[in-house]
């Protein structure tokens, strides 16, 4: 390369913005891509979170270890399941006569006493809800009082709560979208409910099956074969495969057309002023990186700033792809620089030389 990279960056930026009409077209294209990308990301995030909410409502993240029909489950099954690396909690429940009837409609009462205090009770079951029945840690404080549990939310922010109950191998939507599984002390369990991180449910199901194989079988209630896939990651990939090539292709086309129309004559002048082929390629790469990178990064920044609820999965942001683009661009620039250094010529020659 004949021109230092810093000077090339400055010169490229000057060239990009030196023509108002082309600059306007470029800015418009960038803005459109940025807005489009932001819309796609928000749409992806909404789709993913909606699906996660649906799956969570169906008990996604729950693995059930069961004995043969009607038999009592060996209590060691729960101990083995709880020992599997990655399991949040495991607790035994008994066989139930009416699982489907249970839940909030069956009488579990959730009352917001104040913005921070929630009262849960199960008055009609005859079994008091106690603090010992809570599986999920993370609550600031709990108090068993008058047949109910008072749950203190930290700063009014919702915390997922999981409680299990004697005859409730199910899961119930409650408490600001958190989950409740209600249980009480039992004598003859038929199930062991294993609480796992939802995104790990498929992997951990295999580990739990291996750990509890001598006690019974396992099932993953929420994941019917049709729901087993895609995972959120796969869903993101599907969305990206569908939208990103289209938008990237259209944008590349616009930028390339603008560059061709704008800079063909300029390139001849640069060549006249001793810019090497590698310099011109590098300017092109810088221009593409700038014109494509700015709207992409702007879209990401906009989405992140607007994403107050942390609903956007990090894989949507395509950080790996951005890093890959930087690496590839650097390699290409270095390769052209090397070729240029090898190809520098002198022009003292004679025919046949």
């Amino acid at each position, binding site marked *: 390369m004949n*021109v230092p990279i810093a000077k090339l960056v400055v010169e490229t930026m000057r060239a990009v913005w030196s*023509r108002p009409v082309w600059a306007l077209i470029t800015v418009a294209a960038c803005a459109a891509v940025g807005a489009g990308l932001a819309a796609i990301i928000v749409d992806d995030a909404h789709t993913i979170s909606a699906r996660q909410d649906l799956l969570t409502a169906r008990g996604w993240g729950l693995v059930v270890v069961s004995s043969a029909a009607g038999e009592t489950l060996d209590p060691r099954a729960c101990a083995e399941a709880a020992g599997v690396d990655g399991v949040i909690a495991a607790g035994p429940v008994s066989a139930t006569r009416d699982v489907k009837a249970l839940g909030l409609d069956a009488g579990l009462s959730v009352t917001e006493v104040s913005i921070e205090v929630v009262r849960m009770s199960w008055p009609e079951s005859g079994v008091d809800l106690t603090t010992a029945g809570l599986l999920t840690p993370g609550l600031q404080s709990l108090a068993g009082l008058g047949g109910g549990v008072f749950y203190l939310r930290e700063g009014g922010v919702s915390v997922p709560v999981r409680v299990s109950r004697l005859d409730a191998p199910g899961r119930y939507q409650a408490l600001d979208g958190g989950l409740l599984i209600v249980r009480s002390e039992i004598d003859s369990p038929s199930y062991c409910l294993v609480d796992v991180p939802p995104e790990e449910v498929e992997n951990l199901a295999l580990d739990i099956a291996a750990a509890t194989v001598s006690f019974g079988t396992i099932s993953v209630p929420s994941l019917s074969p049709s729901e087993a896939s895609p995972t959120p990651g796969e869903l993101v990939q599907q969305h990206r495969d569908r939208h990103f090539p289209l938008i990237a292709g259209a944008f590349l086309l616009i930028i390339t057309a603008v560059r061709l129309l704008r800079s063909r004559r300029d390139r001849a*002048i640069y060549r006249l002023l001793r810019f090497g082929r590698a*310099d011109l390629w590098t300017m092109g790469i810088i221009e593409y990186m700038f014109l494509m990178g700015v709207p992409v990064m702007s879209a990401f920044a906009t989405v992140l700033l607007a994403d107050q609820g942390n609903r956007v999965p990090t894989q949507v942001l395509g950080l790996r792809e951005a890093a890959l683009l930087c690496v590839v661009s650097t390699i290409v620039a270095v390769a052209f620089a090397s070729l240029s250094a090898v190809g520098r010529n002198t022009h*003292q*020659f004679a025919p046949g030389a």
Partner: protein
Amino acid sequence: MRIEANSLSLIAGNRRLFADLNVAWDGPGLIAVIGPSGSGKSTFLSSLMGWTRPDEGSIVVQPASSVWLVPQNAPLLDSRTVHENLEVALLADDDTLLPSRRSIDETLAAYRLDHQTNVLAKHLSGGERQRVALARVALRQPHILLADEVTAGLDPASVKMVTEALCELASHTLVVVATHDERVWSASDIVLDLAERAI
């Protein structure tokens, strides 16, 4: 600084432009290459630049790394100012033979362009464009400058100013200018007439 052509022959397509040309010029100085259209003036300059390979004979240009060309019609970055057009010439900085440069402002003043520093190149007249193109190259203080029809289509006042600029450059540079214009070649130290192969 030296240009030497030995038994040089150039062919364009199927037509021989000239044959057995022998010249040896040492700089600084102003050399005019004249001849009718199609006599091979531009091709000769191109061969001195190393862009056209001679069919016979040889060319020696010393130092080869400090040869600059100002083409016809003064190509400038039209959407950039005069000052920026000169700045761009300083970006490619690999020439180890480059002597100390004059500043851009000094160069603009020398070429009587100092009052147009911030004017966009697209608003310049033909003569002003040629002077900017010459100033852009002069900024690099080349050892050898090749100028191709730099006064073509200019009014007499502009031709005079461009010729003065060429003479100013020739005081420290070996300038070879291909031209039809008598006002230019009459100011030259040496005239090469390609039509007659005579010096």
